[in-house]
């Protein structure tokens, strides 16, 4: 019995720690959403998914860097990337969302660009990034309409 209660306590502690980390990560992502523009978010998502950054290559005007320089690229590379970046689908239907609740700060406010504000231990996993940024874009498209 003692052993089982120890296991239970350990599991509860792990759950609590995971919940804490989740809150930290959520705060980070909210901060990123506030501080980074659409292009930066896309680049971050691509990097987290193992794709190269956009650099000069983008497929919609709001994302490309206006330049008169030409960028050398293989056709296959560009098209494979294009199809991946621009999947087919309708504009997402407006989603009724509950008003955002303020997220309690897990500590000092995250300062993007200031390494002293970074939490090096909390790296973003690709699934979370993709899921979160997908919601971000849906929000933006909704607000733009």
């Amino acid at each position, binding site marked *: 019995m003692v052993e089982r209660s120890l296991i239970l306590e350990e599991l509860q502690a792990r759950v609590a720690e995971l919940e804490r980390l989740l809150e930290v990560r959520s705060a980070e992502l909210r901060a990123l959403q506030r501080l980074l523009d659409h292009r930066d978010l896309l680049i971050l998502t691509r990097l987290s998914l193992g794709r190269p950054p956009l650099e000069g290559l983008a497929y919609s005007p709001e994302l490309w860097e206006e330049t008169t320089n030409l960028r050398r690229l293989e*056709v296959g590379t560009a098209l494979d990337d294009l199809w991946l970046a621009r999947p087919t689908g309708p504009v997402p239907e407006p989603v009724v969302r509950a008003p955002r609740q303020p997220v309690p700060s897990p500590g000092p406010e995250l300062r993007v660009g200031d390494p002293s504000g970074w939490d090096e231990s909390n790296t973003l996993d690709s699934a979370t990034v993709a899921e979160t940024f997908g919601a971000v874009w849906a929000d933006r498209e909704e607000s733009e309409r």
Partner: protein
Amino acid sequence: MKPVTLIILAWNRWALTRRCLETLRLTNLEDAEVLVVDNGSTDETPERLAELDWVRTLRLPENLGYVRGNNAGIDATAPDRDVVLLNNDLEFSDPEWLVKLRRAAASDPQVGVCGCRLVLPDGRLLHAGTFILPDTLWGQQIGSLETDVGQYASLRRVQGIVFAVAYLKRDMIDQIGGLSLDYESYFEDTDYCLSAAEHGWATAVAGDVTVVHAEHGSTTGDDSNFRRLFGTSRSVFEKKWKRKLIRHYRRNLLWQSIMNFPSGYARSSRDLVKALEQQGVRIIYRYVYGAGSPFPVEEPEGLGDYWLEVVRSRDLPCNIKTAVVYGQGDVFERNIGKRKIGFTMLEVDGFPAEWVRQANKMDEVWVPTEFNRRGMIDSGVKRPVHVVPLGVDPNYFHPGIEGHPNPYGDFVFLANFEWGERKEPWLLLRAFNETFRRDDPVRLVCKMINKDPGVRVKDEIAKLQLSERGGRIDYLFNIDFPHYQLGSLYRSADCFVSAGRGEGWDMPLMEAMACGLSSIATDWGAHEAFVTDEISYPLRVRGTVPAVAKCPYYVGFEWADPDPDHLRHLLRYVFEHQDEAAEKGRRAAATMVARWTWDQAAAKIVERLEVE
């Protein structure tokens, strides 16, 4: 077809030979025997070969070199058999490679030597035939190190092939024997092909056969030996063939033009030069622009093309007779030939006064279309004006080029243009956006270039206020694709749209049509030469309007006013009649290869040059 003996020459490096044989055995070897010539190997090769009951082995007492080793194999074959020479560093992935190679060789009785496409283990193309120029006597492999997109897929006649894979017909061997004993290794293959040609036998490459070749596997790791063999053979080759190669040229031509800029003139100039060279016209090239010209920029070094580099490096003979200036008409005066020809084109319905003045100093003027010929004459050119069309390279633009189709199954319209008034991209963007809904399974991909620092394309597009709920448009902005890969871009789409106001030729449209795409193209200007209802969807024009653009050459002239209603109709029609559109695309590809190749364009030029 005669039965064949596959002769594989091996010298040590059993692992290579084993891999070659393992992959070979998995292929269709009907009517074929396999003979491995062991060129005096000192490793395990003899013992391992002895274990293979499906392979005949000819053991030579010592390494006799590539030529004598292969000749020993040829001598050891039955006299009723054709022969296929094979390197031992090959891998076979196509089970029908031999069937196709034999079929290709048999399809043309004049072909005595037949090779195939060779690719590197990493998939890059290594060889689609060879050429050697008398200027340098440095053999070059066609297509070498290009990404393999399916280029050179047809059966083509070439000057030579590398004998890593070489089908040799028995009747030819009986006539000219085996490989020349003048060589130990290297140049013997080119020598053989040239000798065959002297005896009336052609050399060809079967484009539907591809074999993996780990190049120079048998000499890897022995650079000094390679250099010795190569240098000795080159000297022998020079004595034997240099004069004969020079005699291939029937005439000299000074070609004053542009080759190393991202422009239509430069691109077509390169293709024309190479096509003319192959038809026996020795080209001496001089850059026609630069200081003192309307384009005072020097041409960059580094064409990235061996043949063209050789052409550019040739000295200017003092007795040059005929010179062609191929470029805008305000550089015709730079022609330094005794017989002066100006070759140009323009996208509007006439030519500027300065061009006309300079054209009237030429002995004759060439333009690619009847549209431009009329424009020249109407503008006051009194010299003879001849139509000399441009073309397309069917080796790089054909329906078999590998595409990267949209994985969601969308129907893809493609446009390829430079942002500006002439191409009038806003017409297409608006029409497409208005014609379709965002959730329709269709999209427009615009490959577009902007070189004007005074224009911000993203702002220009924003001004169009395209609907988020309208047809989806993707952009490939300011990307410089290797030209040889553009066929791959076209093959990734279903319909090409060229809805601009005027064209001097429109190579992108012609290349897309050669790739088998359906097309929508403004029914005006140069398009009138090759855009018909049979092979395309001509876009109606409402008439002509003043050609208002930054380009000074257009001032005072008119160009087309494409009908936006008809464009919307055609976009919708093509989308809803995809089978019909695909059939037009197939007919377009057949028409391009039948009528509009660079070879045909060069033949027309040769015809004009012969009229002294």
